[in-house]
């Protein structure tokens, strides 16, 4: 039970940076965390009450009124920094979990599926409610309709400056390019 490969350890002098990969059901969150992570992606359980609040003591954790939701977790060590990647579901009932996850996060990459554009609204609402900066990446599937990005931007009602890119969540190069678009956007916001 308590074993993990020793080559998965980090050095404590890297600055931890938290990034969230968000999106509706089945959009490719787990796939993208997997593509980016240097460790085998992990699953950590969050315990929520029916009311959506987080359980933060042990009394009541085993109650029938609690449910668990699995969050994907990956890690990417870069010179001087270690990225912690959280793959998080975007349904409205996860509002409280989101407030917590977003605390201290550098940014959120929102994955969207053009076959189900409407599913992205709840996620965007959640992300905007946290105030964390975000970019949107359209994860293309073989049967995705080919809309021009401007049409997707309109459909999602995105701010003109919010980055909108197309990605393949399975491809590490493409996944990293989406993260770069997000971080460049955050830097621009800082410099202006």
């Amino acid at each position, binding site marked *: *039970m308590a074993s993990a490969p020793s080559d998965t350890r*980090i050095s404590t002098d890297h600055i*931890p940076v938290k990034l969230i990969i968000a999106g509706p059901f089945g959009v490719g969150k787990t796939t993208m965390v997997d593509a980016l992570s240097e460790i085998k992606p992990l699953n950590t359980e969050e*315990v929520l009450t029916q009311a959506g609040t987080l359980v933060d003591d042990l009394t009541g954790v085993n109650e029938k009124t609690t449910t668990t939701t699995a969050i994907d977790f990956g890690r990417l060590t870069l010179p001087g*920094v270690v990225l912690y990647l*959280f793959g998080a579901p975007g349904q409205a009932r996860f509002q409280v979990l989101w407030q917590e996850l977003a605390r201290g996060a550098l940014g959120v990459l929102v994955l969207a599926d053009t076959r189900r554009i409407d599913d992205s609204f709840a996620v965007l609402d959640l992300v905007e409610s946290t105030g964390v900066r975000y970019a949107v990446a359209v994860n293309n599937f073989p049967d995705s309709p080919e809309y021009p990005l401007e049409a997707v931007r309109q459909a999602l009602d995105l701010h003109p400056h919010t980055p909108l890119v197309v990605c393949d969540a399975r491809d590490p190069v493409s996944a990293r390019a989406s993260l770069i678009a997000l971080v460049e956007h*955050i830097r621009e916001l800082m410099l202006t």
Partner: protein
Amino acid sequence: MTSGRQRRRVVPDYMAAAKLTVPEHISVERTTIVVVAPEAVTDGLDPPGSHLIALLREGPLSVYECAAYLGLPYCVVRLLVAGLAETGTLLTRAPLRADAPDLEILELVLSGLRAL
């Protein structure tokens, strides 16, 4: 999107029975880095505590990773870590607040991602 495991006990019995010392103010978060204190006395710990120590023997991990490897929910491991940090068995390093990001950190992330 629940994991469909609600019928399993979220906290195993051995955990529920363990005598957890939980400090009043907890500053442990998901990305807090945890390491065993060099002088730590780790004999006589309850099973969850000794499992955690065994896991950390090989080097530091974030709280979230500890939870995944132990197969325990984050909320449980957070308390476990907080208790063992209070007694000096574990050392923790708080995550940096990235919500007011530092330009230097952003550049490190960007150049690191570009170099991959």
